[in-house]
């Protein structure tokens, strides 16, 4: 069986390498993917959206439908993990072996975490807010914000995190981010433009259409960040405690 798998994997690998020969060269301007819309994004992106980082402009403005549904995919994945792992109604005995009780009084770890968590959170907010100008945005910022809670849970105890960020609030944030994203889109539609056509917000914000698109991108990035952060925390608290939300790892 193992030999058969090896033969199959080698065969598929050779086929894939053979096919990779036909791929266009790296950063070839004549490759099919860069022929149609890319030149428009690169030439007009800054002019139309006021966002110097083209990746952010494409992600959250030109292709904002994709990003909206990516966020929904993350929400769905987080909810599935929650459905499978979380135990509330039937208190079954824990399936895992009892782990040795760890001493939760490690002063160096806890002091380091106490210093690091605020720095990580401020950096995460910076990543979200500065996504217009530098690499970053809602996904990365949300993940970094989520890791600050995970650090707290690892160095202290899961209960310490849950006392500050209750499970109900986590789940509320999961949905609120997607709702914020879709709400911005629906608001644009209510003002008579397309769904997620941020230029519609120009009247409300009292700015030009270009700046309205820039602000719309920031709003949806914040929505993505909230959802991703809450989903990461939700995944961790369920995985670490096996669904009981007790002491964690």
């Amino acid at each position, binding site marked *: 069986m193992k030999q058969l798998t090896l033969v199959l994997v080698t065969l598929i690998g050779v086929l894939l390498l053979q096919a990779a020969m036909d791929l266009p060269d790296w950063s070839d301007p004549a490759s099919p993917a860069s022929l149609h819309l890319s030149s428009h994004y690169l030439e007009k992106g800054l002019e139309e959206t006021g966002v110097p980082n083209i990746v952010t402009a494409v992600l959250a403005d030109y292709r904002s439908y994709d990003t909206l549904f990516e966020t929904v995919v993350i929400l769905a994945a987080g909810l599935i993990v929650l459905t499978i792992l979380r135990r509330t109604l039937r208190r079954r005995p824990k399936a895992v072996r009892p*782990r040795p009780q760890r001493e939760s009084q490690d002063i160096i770890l806890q002091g380091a975490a106490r210093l690091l968590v605020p720095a990580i959170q401020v950096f995460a907010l910076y990543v979200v807010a500065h996504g217009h100008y530098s690499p970053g*945005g809602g*996904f*990365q910022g949300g*993940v970094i914000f989520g890791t600050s809670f995970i650090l707290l849970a690892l160095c202290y105890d899961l209960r310490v995190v849950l006392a500050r960020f209750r499970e109900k609030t986590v789940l509320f944030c999961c949905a609120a981010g997607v709702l914020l994203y879709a709400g911005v889109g629906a608001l644009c539609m209510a003002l008579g433009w397309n769904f997620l056509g941020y230029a519609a917000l120009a009247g409300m914000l009292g700015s030009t259409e270009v700046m309205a698109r820039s602000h719309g991108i920031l709003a949806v990035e914040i929505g993505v960040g909230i959802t991703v952060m809450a989903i990461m925390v939700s995944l961790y608290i369920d*995985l670490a405690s096996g669904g009981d939300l007790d002491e964690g790892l």
Partner: protein
Amino acid sequence: MDWDASLLWQFDLLLLLMAVICAIAALSLKDLISCAVIGGVYSFLLCLAWTEMLAVDVAFTEAAVGAGISTVLILGTVLHLNRRSKD
């Protein structure tokens, strides 16, 4: 921009070799915690490869999600399982 990626082929080769070594090690090791950590190393190597291809946004995501949080989540899962793999 004045950037010639062909100057860095040695760096590319090194990254590729290390990524292949990491992949083989992750598959052949029996200790699942080592596998999870090597998975994180593999993600970090890919992050360097993205940076080298000037895809900085992708590299940032790879570092935060691939090398950072998925390693933590996989480790959290492994601690609930038997630590040694059967095959």
